[in-house]
């Protein structure tokens, strides 16, 4: 990898961040594009890619925002970490080629925010306490998973099976890579298409109750309405099978309610705020905020399931290992009789 290229990217990225700071501070609703019927335009291609962590590092306490200087320093460090050279022959050296397209976030648009974490409520920027029932379920799930996660395709994770990404939302959260969205919009609907699972979340804008005509749905049932220039979306009716992001075993329960607010603040930015209320799982609601930023289209079809060689290879590998163990020791665990 070329050091020059690394430095070039970092400098370019720093410049982009400075520009974004000024763009954000000058946001004027007068610049905002509008549809033929007068609503703010949400239609377009967007990214939620960001370096902001979902949960705030504990040592930052209740510090909600970095200073611009701290942001610049953190970003520089972060980009260098993603490009870090590793030593040949060490386990750390077994990784993707970070120069490959889409493997490094320095190659894509990254949203800017001075936030120290996406979660801003509770004020420590971290998930609230789980309920006792949720803790018990999580322990049970993780025990089951330890013993059974390799049993079959059905015991693998939902994303490995190409069913859903935890970050697809609601609430929408950034993925490790390809946090690309296509938003489409009519007077009656907003449709959010996440490139990675490539399926629509259809949001009727009739302001109705999301429980009308509802069946349990993977992304819940969303209904929206405009409050001034902000699109407000309420979602209920989850399946109870999807995970809270980064917290396997703590589902979005069938009692979960998600409130989302999309506000286009200028030519390049949508401000996105959400609140998750789920008394089955959480002892308190939790809220987050980050910006979506425009990117160039078009968006492509990410046919996850049609090209899912991964799950075949994973299961084949485990079965082969078990068979080898069995032939060597008489037990598929390799522990002998």
């Amino acid at each position: 990898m070329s050091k020059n290229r690394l430095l070039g990217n970092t400098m370019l990225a720093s410049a982009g961040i400075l520009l974004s700071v000024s763009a954000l501070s000058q946001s004027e609703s007068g610049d905002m594009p509008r549809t033929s019927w007068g609503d703010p335009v949400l239609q377009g291609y967007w990214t939620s890619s960001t370096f902001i962590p979902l949960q705030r590092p504990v040592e930052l306490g209740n510090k909600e925002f970095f200073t611009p200087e701290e942001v610049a320093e953190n970003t520089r460090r972060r980009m260098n970490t993603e490009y870090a050279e590793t030593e040949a022959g060490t386990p750390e050296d077994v990784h993707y080629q970070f120069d490959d397209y889409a493997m490094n976030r320095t190659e894509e648009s990254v949203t800017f925010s001075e936030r120290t974490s996406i979660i801003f409520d509770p004020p420590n920027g971290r998930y609230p306490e789980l309920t006792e029932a949720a803790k018990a379920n999580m322990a049970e799930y993780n025990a089951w998973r330890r013993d059974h996660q390799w049993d079959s395709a059905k015991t693998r994770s939902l994303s490995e099976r190409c069913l859903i990404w935890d970050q697809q939302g609601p609430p929408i959260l950034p993925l490790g890579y390809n946090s690309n969205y296509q938003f489409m919009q009519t007077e009656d609907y907003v449709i959010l298409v996440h490139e990675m699972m490539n399926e629509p979340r259809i949001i009727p804008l009739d302001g109705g109750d999301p429980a009308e005509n509802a069946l349990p749905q993977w992304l819940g049932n969303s209904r929206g309405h405009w409050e001034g220039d902000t699109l407000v979306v309420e979602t209920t009716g989850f399946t109870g099978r999807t995970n809270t992001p980064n917290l396997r075993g703590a589902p979005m329960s069938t009692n979960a309610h998600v409130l989302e607010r999309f506000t286009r603040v200028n030519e390049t930015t949508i401000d996105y705020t959400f609140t998750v209320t789920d008394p089955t799982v959480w002892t308190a609601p939790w809220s987050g905020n980050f910006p979506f930023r425009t990117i160039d289209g078009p968006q492509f079809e990410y046919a996850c399931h049609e090209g899912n060689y991964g799950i075949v290879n994973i299961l084949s590998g485990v079965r082969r290992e078990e068979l080898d163990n069995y032939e060597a020791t008489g037990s598929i665990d390799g522990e002998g009789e």
Partner: protein
Amino acid sequence: MIKKHMAAACLLSAIVFASAASVAQQADFPRKPNGVPDISGIWQSLNNANWNLEGQAAAQGPVEVLGAIGAVPPGKGIVVGDSIPYKPEALAQREMNFANRRTEDPEAKCFRPGIPRANYMAHPFQIFQTDSDILVTYQFAGALRTIYMDNHMNGPIDSWMGWSNGHWEGDTLVVEVGALNPNWLDRAGNYYSRSAKVTERYTPISPYHLQYEATIEDPEVYEEPWSISMPLYRRVEEGARLYDFKCVEFAEEIMYQHLSRENYFRERGIELNGDSNE
């Protein structure tokens, strides 16, 4: 020969289009501010084309254990001229597809159905007509495609739902679809290759009906282009909407069962001990 058939197909399209357009004018189809028909809404076909585009009498289905539930319903099919003009070697492939349909039909595997098949499955689909492009979302597998009304280009990469460029010819939405992955057209094994090009025509014939026509060109598979034609029905019931049909989990058994621990060792005659992870 090919020219003659193409001329016949064009003539037929013209007749259908002419009659459809005159009905639409009488029926006062909803329109967008710029005057084009507003075809937004939830639509569905009502025929047995997904079982067999060419039509067939009722028959035992591929999975006999389902009894009459798995049987093929009768229907005339929707191919204009009744049969698909396969090249001889392609016809042999169609027969092989049919023989393996229980596990090899991409629908059975929950693959995105491609165009035109997505339009005549037993699932509704929804058209969203925005200020610029049109989005079509299909209940089956959550498949979707954008119909680009501006910025037409050749599909930059092949995909299951292809690349769609659309324009209006009078009251007819004409969509040219290319860059399609090879796919099946129905449960009978009819299929197209990666060289397929599909030209679709959506023409309002009443506030509640669209006439749908598609011409399929694929010189690798067919002697000449051929067409299908069918009505699409608006889902008019109160609260009509699409629901999830995320069918991956319904397809895992046929796709991956040989790799489950239980089946893998049973097939090798190995009995797993009670102290294993089972």
